[in-house]
């Protein structure tokens, strides 16, 4: 994996190449409560998220279920339009370009270079198409290779993700595969075109350790060799530790902490990150864990109040946190960014 870059604000262009920049991305979904409602409520799924991604780098996103990880990923590959903000992506000639304006052939080129592994391997495959059709679809719509070449490339990719022998999987339908096998098909589909950027949305959550490790190694190797960058969405911090050079911790649509993976995991700054780490189960039946240090209420991203999003559950919050807007993402030393007044 490539050299991790700590500083996200200013990019030293000489050391590595900037591939993608998200600027103040926000996505709000209106809550449909009826046409008579003049002031509809909004789900603030993603709320002012900015980061940079270098070529060959893997950025992990971890965070609570429903905090906007998938939505962020979808905006990066233009499957969802941001309500506010921009996504800049390196185009064929090496310049950063706003993907919102792509059309026609440039859009198609972008699609070839930016892929997504979808979170749900059950719904992200057309039940009427065979595994071969599914994995070959990107090649087919991008008109890459002839039939025989596609067949070979698909078989090769299936072999890489551990679906061996490929011939016994090519002409099965998705419902004839196990959960983990489908997840590997989803990964194969994203990798088959040699993209330069992949949003991997919990790509290995249904895989056992051994196969998961194999796939993590494969993805790491591709990052090294071909300079693929990943946005790796996961809830498994151990996986993030092995895959990602940097991680961003999200809470209710906001990035609350971001920095080098080892740094963040070994000495977290934000109280939410601390709670997250203390909730990781230990593979030892005898061991006991300290209870989690946050209050148990459910978090809802509907029309949040203008204060720290984590206020209601925070163990260290005080009046200052209540009376001020959500804290900005600040440098807390050695390139670590955190959004907390108290840390």
């Amino acid at each position, binding site marked *: 994996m490539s050299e991790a870059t700590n500083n996200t604000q200013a990019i030293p262009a000489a050391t590595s190449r900037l591939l993608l920049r998200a600027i103040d991305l926000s996505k709000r979904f209106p809550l449909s409560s009826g046409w008579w409602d003049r002031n509809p409520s909004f789900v603030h799924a993603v709320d002012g998220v900015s980061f940079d991604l270098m070529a060959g780098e893997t950025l992990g996103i971890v965070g609570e279920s429903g905090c906007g990880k998938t939505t962020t990923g979808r905006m990066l590959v233009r499957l969802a339009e941001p309500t506010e903000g921009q996504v800049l992506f390196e185009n064929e000639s090496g310049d950063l370009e706003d993907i919102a304006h792509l059309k026609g052939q440039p859009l198609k080129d972008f699609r070839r270079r930016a892929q997504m592994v979808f979170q749900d391997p059950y719904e992200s495959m057309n039940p009427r198409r065979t595994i071969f059709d599914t994995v070959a679809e990107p090649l087919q719509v991008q008109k890459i290779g002839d039939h025989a070449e596609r067949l070979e490339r698909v078989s090769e990719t299936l072999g890489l993700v551990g679906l061996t022998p490929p011939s016994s999987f090519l002409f099965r339908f998705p419902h004839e595969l196990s959960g983990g096998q489908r997840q590997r098909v989803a990964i194969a589909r994203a990798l088959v075109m040699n993209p330069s950027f992949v949003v991997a949305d919990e790509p290995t959550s249904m895989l056992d350790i051994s196969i998961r490790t194999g796939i993590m190694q494969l993805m790491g190797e591709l990052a090294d060799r071909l300079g693929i960058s990943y946005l790796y969405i996961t809830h498994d911090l151990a996986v993030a530790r092995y895959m990602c050079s940097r991680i961003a911790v999200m809470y209710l649509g906001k990035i609350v902490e971001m920095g080098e993976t080892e740094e963040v995991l070994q000495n977290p700054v934000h109280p939410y990150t601390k709670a997250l780490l203390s909730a990781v189960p230990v*593979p030892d039946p005898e061991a006991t864990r300290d209870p*989690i240090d946050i209050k148990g209420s459910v978090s809802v991203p509907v029309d949040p109040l203008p204060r720290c999003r984590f206020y209601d559950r925070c163990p260290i919050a005080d009046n200052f946190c209540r009376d001020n807007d959500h804290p900005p993402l600040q440098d807390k030393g050695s390139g670590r960014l955190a959004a907390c007044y108290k840390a």
Partner: protein
Amino acid sequence: MTTDPVLAVDDLKMHYVTQAGVVRAVDGVSFSVERGQSLGLVGESGCGKSSIAMTLLKLLPDNARLVAGSIALNGIDLVPLSEDEMRPHRWDRISMVFQAAMNSLDPVYRVGDQIVEALEAHSSSAGRDAMERVRELFDLVSLDPSYILRYPHEYSGGMRQRAIIAMALACEPDIIIADEPTTALDVIVQDHILREMQTIQHSLEMSMIYISHDMAVIAEVCDVVGVMYAGKLVEFGPTADVYARPIHPYTRALMSAFPSVRGEKHELVTLPGEPPNLLDPPGGCAFNPRCAYATDECRTTAPPIVKRGDQWAACWNPSDE
């Protein structure tokens, strides 16, 4: 705990007929689960864990064949039951959180209505009562009540999974089969749900079969654990024993090289070789091509059962530490 098992499975065999041949997804599996006990099932992807679960509920696809074996639920054998006779058992006595949880919600109905429908179909609670129960259940799985009246596509992956867990718990069954129920959940919500489920389990003496690849979660949740490989159980025993002193080489491989967030970051190791092809599994012990201790016996003859206390394994060369 009484000695009467809630569920006793004996020599269960379920095969899929495909055009390439017969997939032996469940190939002679026996185990039992006692009242209030939770059994963990672990094993490589594609080794047949979900297939066992679907067989227990007799929710099999058209190309599946239940070849042999018996499934005794509270002493009643489910195997010979017809679909109509099976229906009252499902959900009321044995319910399931599917691995495909995220897509078992109907996209055109609101989630709350779907749970109410399930409740009304299986219990006497109706109307206001049922809605009240849905609120309780949503609270249990940390979902905000405002989501009750939303459609599945407005949920995130993890929220859908939680809605399905709520639905499975709705009828307070005798035994619940959870197939990777928390794969899409962050650790805090997972922790909360597992704790809640354990509380319910203890208060209702509910049993549970928990399928997962996450050894850490199994360690926290399950009393006994079964390790599967290529459609067969290869090791079974109390969780503490299996984790402390695994007998089968495959179990040992599973236990080692577990990635961890804590402590030193060590190299991850993968199991050498390829996952077994269930169309044509290796002879003798199916694990032999990937086993460091394999001998000629392993390649030709099915391994014997080795016992150590409550723990057993099917292996020719058991670890004797």
